[in-house]
């Protein structure tokens, strides 16, 4: 590892269907918020990292140029990071590398998306290899549904149990969204509502799936020296991990998922974590699909393979459980994709600095933030802590 790095400010736009603002103004909402939160000004920033989904999402290419003013990047070095769904975590990790390397002291990371202006699943299809696979993967829901279906059968989990656990996750997250002023979808659901909703890609139903959101998130990373000087209560980056797989969907095991297992393992090793369920106080797992969230619990070592649905039903991962997951309501309730991973990082930082308001997990000191991207191809994990 290089130099110690901390998060010294976070900012989010209001997420939702934001046809009331043009895209740069939406980005600026998050950037204004991060300067308010940190007390810094654009002059304090050494460099800017921007992240988004492919240009096909909004029909404007090179959006980091489009947002130069909104991100206050004029006169500064600027980088773009693009790893599909994991973009937000990659953007955070790029900012981390930049500061950790010693080449910059204070870096602004910004993630953004306006999903309601285009067609998100048609955009996903442009991410797929064009000769063969794109015919069969039917956007993100098709990919994640097939993965989850294969996982549940592999570990002999009865279909009804998975469906019940998925519904409990959905109800919990939708309830939590009411405690998050930035969340997009705010609706009270019952387990039966979720279980009986319309099928999107069987076995996945409507309330098992995230929305299309517009939103932006901004996070400021600083060196140890600058963090101690500029911030009373920084969130320290304790570990980062990132792993990829082959672009051929059928080439790797998506149930015991190498990139998810590997990314978490790398981050845990750096953070000195050996028993994540005990040592983590809260996790912001990238959960656009309820079924897939359980698969992540297992890949991240929160429990054994095949065990997640039982533990969900016992409340282990609920707000008052042993390891609360996604108290923000998660991706399931808010998904402006290029911002989504960075929102996980921002929420984790707020948790370990006791700034998460009504969704605060009392006494949280160690948090995991995660995002996944591509055709089930990439996973990235950060561990944040309240102590250096």
């Amino acid at each position, binding site marked *: 590892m290089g130099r110690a790095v901390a998060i010294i400010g976070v900012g989010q736009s209001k997420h939702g269907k934001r046809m009331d603002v043009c895209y740069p103004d939406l980005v600026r909402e998050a950037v204004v918020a991060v300067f308010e939160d940190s007390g810094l000004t654009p002059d304090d920033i050494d460099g800017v990292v921007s992240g988004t989904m492919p240009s096909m999402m909004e029909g404007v290419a090179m959006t980091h140029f489009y947002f130069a003013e909104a991100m206050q990047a004029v006169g500064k070095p600027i980088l773009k990071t693009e790893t599909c769904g994991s973009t937000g975590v990659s953007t955070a990790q790029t900012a981390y590398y930049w500061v950790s390397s010693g080449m910059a002291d204070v870096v602004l990371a910004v993630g953004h998306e306006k999903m309601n202006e285009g067609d998100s699943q048609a955009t996903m*299809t442009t991410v797929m290899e064009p000769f063969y696979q794109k015919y069969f993967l039917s956007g993100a829901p098709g990919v994640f549904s097939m993965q989850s279906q*294969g996982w549940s059968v592999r570990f002999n989990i009865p279909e009804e149990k998975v469906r019940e656990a998925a519904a409990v996750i959905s109800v919990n997250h939708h309830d939590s969204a009411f405690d998050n002023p930035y969340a997009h979808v705010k609706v009270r659901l019952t387990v039966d509502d979720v279980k009986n909703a319309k099928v999107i890609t069987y076995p996945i139903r409507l309330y098992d799936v995230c929305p299309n959101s517009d939103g932006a998130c901004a996070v400021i990373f600083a060196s140890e020296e600058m963090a101690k000087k500029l911030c009373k209560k920084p969130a320290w980056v304790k570990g980062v991990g990132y792993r990829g797989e082959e672009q051929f969907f*059928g080439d790797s095991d998506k149930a015991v998922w190498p990139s998810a297992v590997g990314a978490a393992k790398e981050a845990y090793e750096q953070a000195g974590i050996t028993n994540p369920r005990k040592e983590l106080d809260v996790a912001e797992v990238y959960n656009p699909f309820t079924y897939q969230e359980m698969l992540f619990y297992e890949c991240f070592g929160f429990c054994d393979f095949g065990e997640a649905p039982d533990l969900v039903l016992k409340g282990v991962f609920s707000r008052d459980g042993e390891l609360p997951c996604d108290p923000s309501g998660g991706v399931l309730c808010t998904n402006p994709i290029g911002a989504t991973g960075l929102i996980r990082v921002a929420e984790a930082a707020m948790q370990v600095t006791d700034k998460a308001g009504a969704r605060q997990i009392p006494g949280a000191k160690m948090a995991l933030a995660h995002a996944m991207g591509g055709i089930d191809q990439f996973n990235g994990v950060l561990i944040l802590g309240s102590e250096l």
Partner: protein
Amino acid sequence: MMVKEYKTLETEVRLPYRLAYGETWTRFFEGMKEEKILGCKCSQCNRVLVPARSFCPRCFIDTDEWVECSQEGTLVAWCLTNYRYYAQPIEPPFISALINLDGTDVNFLHLIGGFDLSDLEAVRKKVKNGMRVKAVWEREKRGHILDLKYFTPV
């Protein structure tokens, strides 16, 4: 409070592309015309990879041994797509699936079909991971992945 409606711009981005298949994909799709599913064997890890590849992704060496793969295999995972998006290449509902073709070491992505998909409960009873499936071909071929119509339960 009334939410004020602002203007929106209706626009589209349309660009033509001509994507090069290269030698390996070209031969694979020529195989489709002959009702063959072609793969390649890596001489280092001995894995049979399908569809055919110019190199083994793990050993990073050229794959020079071509293999005609079995047209039968075992269902590994599936999902039924029942929603639409812009320019969707296949009309829903359809079943995407990962199939382990006999004698190969990766899963082959394609469709499961040949029966009524309108009744979800009937589909659930019929489609089971681990079941045996076999390739069904279109009569007219165009050197395309959909020359292989779908896999159907044996």
